[in-house]
């Protein structure tokens, strides 16, 4: 069962990197939340209520319900539904994903720790680089938003890879960081983006005190 979740998570990353529709971003991100919940549930060793509640809140409630809802609202308010024409084409992105998978394998091999589950490390590196790829090749801020959220998923996977050595509190802290980043960008998109004359990442550089 875990194998299926790994593969589905990998496939979801490939699709999120290659798709050009923002509603697909949202759907895939929501699906990733469910997949992460499934992985965490299977891997969970200390099965106590608070731990389960935290995982449920982080994956299903935050990643699959709240964030997709907010992203959908942002998409509707900005009226932008697909990536910028100047963004890197989907076929080049898929080719880059192949390179990224190779790099992830290499890093997992080089930085391997015996007690750490290597397959999680590979998927976590792969997720991290996919997030970075989205941030670097997409022109609109919406793509960057999703990129940051994907990076947070990578952090979650890293936390699962090292299990008990990575306390849930640290994970929640990183989640909060990402949440603030997303909130700031959402405010830019929904409140001041119109005044700035666009929703491209470059326009952020015009912001002053």
């Amino acid at each position, binding site marked *: 069962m875990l194998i*299926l979740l790994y*593969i589905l998570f990998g496939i979801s990353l490939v699709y999120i990197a*290659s798709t050009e529709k923002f509603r697909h971003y949202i759907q895939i991100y929501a699906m990733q939340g469910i997949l992460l919940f499934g992985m965490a549930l299977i891997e969970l060793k200390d099965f106590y209520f608070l731990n389960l509640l935290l995982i449920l809140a982080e994956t299903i409630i935050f990643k699959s319900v709240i964030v997709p809802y907010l992203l959908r609202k942002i998409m509707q308010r900005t009226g932008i539904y697909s990536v910028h024409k100047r963004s890197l*084409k989907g076929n080049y992105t*898929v080719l880059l994903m192949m390179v990224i*998978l190779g790099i992830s394998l290499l890093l997992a*091999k080089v930085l391997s720790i015996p007690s750490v589950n290597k397959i999680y490390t590979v998927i976590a590196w792969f997720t991290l680089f996919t997030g970075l790829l989205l941030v670097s090749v997409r022109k609109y801020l919406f793509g960057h938003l999703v990129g940051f959220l994907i990076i947070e998923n990578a952090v979650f996977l890293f936390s699962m890879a090292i299990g008990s050595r990575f306390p849930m509190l640290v994970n929640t802290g990183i989640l909060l960081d990402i949440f603030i980043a997303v909130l700031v960008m959402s405010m830019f998109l929904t409140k001041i983006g119109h005044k700035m004359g666009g929703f491209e990442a470059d326009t952020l550089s015009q912001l002053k005190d």
Partner: protein
Amino acid sequence: MVALILILTTSLFFPGLIVRVKSIASGRKGPGILQPIKNIYVLLRKGIVYSTLSGTVSRFAPVIVFGSVAVASLMIPVAGFEPLISFNGDFILFAYLLALARFMMIIASFDTGSSFEGMGASREALYGMLIEPALFILLAGLVVFTGEYSLTGIFNLPGGENYNLIYGLIISYILGNITIIENSRVPLDDPKTHLELTMIHEVMVLDTSGFNLALIQFSSFIKFAVFGSLIASALIPRDLSLAWRLISFVTVQMVFAATIGFLESFRTRFKMNRNQQFILTVTMISVLMFVIILFTKNIF
């Protein structure tokens, strides 16, 4: 021999089933299941017309296309039944026989001297080049997974506690997409379209007629049956009883044909520039599958 009979029987009904599902999905009465085969029978009785510009390649290419696909079909295990040809490394020959068929189609369409056919041929060559790695990586992954080097060994799925439906489903997904690309179906190409600028496979056979066209169309039907049989072999465990294996085989083929029919009914065709991305995505999923297999076998 049973494997070959099953593949040939499937190839007779497969395209008709797709057409039937499409007509039901769009609310039409539509043709019968045997209509595509009846069309081939009509074509077989018709004479061949050659363009004055075409050379000898156009004359023998359809026979080689049919021959290559027919020989490739002899290597396919079907639901636990042994194929007629099986040896270590036969999957390489299988892939290259399909590539030979594609190559002959391409040079035959160049041979006619038509710019439209040349355009279709160039697209077919590009898509063929992009999808071949997906097939090879998938087969390589299965070689690692099973430790076997022939198609019969690779697709000899164990039953009981060792049965792994998840791998079967993922293999089916990849093979299903390869079938769509190999046969130039929706969302890559639409066999119903007659706008030459957007055609791939159909534009390559514009100058082919009569007996030759029948051979090429029947080759496409066999390809469907071949990939459908591989999917069935990836899903059906070998230690089921004969009756159950046959029932499962027919069910898988019918579901596969119906899925293609439904997809063609409700899915729009991609723009030409999106096709490469679609094919590369299939290849990428194949690579992912390979990586996961490396991990599960503790090779990496």
